[in-house]
């Protein structure tokens, strides 16, 4: 049973990365889109693309936390005791990002839009970096078992954490760029299709490079996970590389439909390969999944909740995405032409 829950946890992490991660990645492109004039068109695409879905995507994180502390309380205690600095930064970053995005949507003056935009975009980079650093700290065995604290600094400022943090930012930016190609296409903005297609290709190359560096770092710094990638996780690594390469080819050829799916698969299998590589450990070489698991009754309750989620929440999730992709959920700003004019006057 603990294995099933661990798989559920991994799927939730993958879902958060593939859906929620892309919303962070969109924030990355928002950050580097340039000044208010040059950046207004990409920002418009970004705002429309993530507006209706980011809160639902964000719930995956809550789900990960809940499964973690309910099904694996000892590991949760160890992780939060050890990695409290990046966790605290991520929590504050999440507050800043969510509220800034919501506020930016409903204010009209350029000054305030820029202020909230900066809050949204900078925290969109900070949070995935912290998440990556946390994952790196866990992967490199910095978190001890038994609800004990590891080193509060080395646990997240170490080679594996740094490279995982950078990789996380690159991955979410890559996914976002790929998705934004479609969002721009849906919004009928050919220039922006091209804009994000180019960025998606660059990001793909950066992800590939960061992953390669990551492998070298893992070999030196997290040998258990490195060995796991060569054995237990090898199939997933190959799938990831294959899908990533396929997606890149399709992006070069003008981004037909399959590119988005391949990009999602590439990222999903990349993350899943990490999970497979550290199996059977939840905290590599100190706590196995089965040792960390809560009593059976708790695991059954979590499974019941997951089944209910599949029955009732998943259809809602699909409905939201279908409606969104069919443009049935258009942007609902509060601006009107009359208000906007004075704020946009030059000087």
């Amino acid at each position, binding site marked *: 049973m603990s294995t099933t829950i661990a798989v559920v946890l991994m799927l939730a992490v993958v879902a958060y990365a593939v859906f929620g991660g892309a919303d962070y990645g969109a924030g990355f492109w928002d950050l580097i889109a340039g000044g208010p004039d040059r950046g*207004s068109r990409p920002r*418009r695409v970004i705002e429309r693309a993530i*507006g209706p*879905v980011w*809160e*639902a995507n*964000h719930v995956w*994180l*809550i789900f990960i*936390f*809940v*499964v973690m*502390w*309910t*099904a694996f*309380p000892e590991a*949760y*205690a160890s*992780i*939060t*005791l050890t990695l409290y600095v990046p966790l*605290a930064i991520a*929590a504050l970053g*999440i*507050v800043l990002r*969510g*509220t800034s995005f*919501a*506020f930016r*949507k*409903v*204010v*009209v003056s350029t000054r305030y839009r820029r202020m909230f935009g900066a809050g949204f975009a900078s925290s969109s980079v900070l949070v995935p970096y912290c998440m990556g650093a946390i994952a790196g700290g866990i992967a490199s065995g910095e978190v001890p078992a038994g609800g004990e604290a590891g080193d509060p600094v080395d646990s997240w400022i170490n080679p594996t954490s740094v490279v995982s943090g950078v990789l996380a930012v690159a991955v979410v930016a890559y996914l976002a760029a790929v998705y934004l190609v479609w969002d721009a296409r849906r*919004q009928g903005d050919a220039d922006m299709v091209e804009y994000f297609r180019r960025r998606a290709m660059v990001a793909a190359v950066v992800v590939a490079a960061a992953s390669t560096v990551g492998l070298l770092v893992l070999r030196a710094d997290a040998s258990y996970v490195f060995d796991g990638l060569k054995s237990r996780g090898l199939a997933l690594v190959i799938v990831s590389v294959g899908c990533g390469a396929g997606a890149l080819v399709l992006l070069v050829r003008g981004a037909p439909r399959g590119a988005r799916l391949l990009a999602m698969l590439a990222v999903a299998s990349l993350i899943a390969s990490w999970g497979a590589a550290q199996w059977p450990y939840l905290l590599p070489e100190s706590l196995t999944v089965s040792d960390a698991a*809560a*009593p*059976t*009754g*708790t695991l059954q*309750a*979590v499974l019941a*909740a997951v089944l*209910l*989620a599949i029955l*009732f*929440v998943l259809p*809602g*999730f699909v409905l*939201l995405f279908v*409606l969104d992709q069919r443009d*049935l*959920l*258009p*942007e*609902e700003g*509060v*601006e*009107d032409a*009359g*208000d906007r004019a004075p704020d946009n006057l030059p000087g």
Partner: protein
Amino acid sequence: MSATLNELVAIADVDPVPWARAQMAFTLACHIILVPLGVSWALMTLIANYRAIRHDDRDALVLAQRWSKYMAVTFAVGAVTGTVLSFEFGLLWPKFMGRWGEAFGVPFAFEGLFFFTEAIFLAIYIFGWRRLKPWTHFWTGVPIVLAGIFGSASVVAANAWMNSPSGFTLDSNGNVIDVDPVGVIFNDAMPLQAAHMILAAYVVGGFLVASVYATGMLRGRQDRYHRLGFVIAFTVAAVATPIQMGVGDALARWVFNNQPAKFAAIEMVPETSKDVPETLLGHLNEDGTVSGGIKIPGLASWLSDPSTGSSTTVQGLNEFPADERPTTRQVNVVHLAWDVMIGLGTLLFLLSVWYAASWIFRRRMPASKWFLRAAACSGVLAIITMEAGWVVAEVGRQPWIVYHHMKVEDAATANTGIWIMFIVVVILYLALAVTTILVLRAMSRRFRRSGGFTDHDTPYGPSESLEDAEVKAGEKTVR
């Protein structure tokens, strides 16, 4: 260099327990203000939406649409402040989560479902105004209301479990070895506590929204739109308030029967006795005497169990070892918070009675300026009432985090640097509070200026094509 570093470390090295408590209290106190809006505003919006479609009521339609846009902002703030709480369980109380997570966490697994549902349908509802069919759109709002109710019930189930832990088996070392999820969720305190919080959400949400429209009417905006906004919200609150008093009374009796130390703190009873007076205000001294306050003879005993009346015995603080009951200071806090909750709750109840009487006898809402003035204050008063009630529940439980199983001081993190996080959180949240209010006000002003609908096209109407929107956007950029 290293001396300075050591000094810095020494400064940062403070007892984490009070800081952990302060941060949890502060972030919860902030989040709990947003909860009522998340739970009850959706219902009010749907009432307006229903009226709009059923009676082709344009004012109601404008209300529903604007409320949904405000809701988008308050929900986002609520979602992220709620996320902070789930980080804090680990960051502040890792030992509590490590030992009890397998039981305490269970209700949250189900809360996650409801939060998902709420986020999904809120997005569909908020963004669905223009392109979904009217009734389809209306029905996408219904899951938000249900998810709000069941979601808060789940969260409160976890809190209630801390008051009446059940559904688990311990081994000889005190570790949880078996969990009965049903026993955890439906613990003894859960039904009444959950009902009390859900009703509080309707009371606070209703009065808060109504108070905004009451203020508008006092400023001369006496149009039908403002009246409608007021009536929908105030009616929700006025219906919930009397029910809330009944549930609150039952919950107090539950505390009397199950958490006598908390009850002794609430009623400020130093020594076990019969014929215990209800003390309004007053102060408990370190030597166990009560000074000041107005005493109503026998009332506390009588309320505790009306069947035995004033001869009901109420256990006093002297029954419990000093380290198993709230400290004197905490008793004073609990008692004052209790008085505030009861006092303000009663005022809100009287206001609801005034409103109901006017509808019954005159078939309209009270016309008096004084009623509107009171209603304009009701939102803030309702928030204070709710916060006070929450202080009673939480401070009254001290020193326990899991009643009779684990103390707060044993649950907190050992990280001595968390005071830094607390200061950052306070600054961030204060900025967030100010900004949220400013943004909501700016939205309201803009809505008012633009008169009717604020977007390029109307809800449920033919929508502007994307190309037109692009052209307009282009023009704006050029200009």
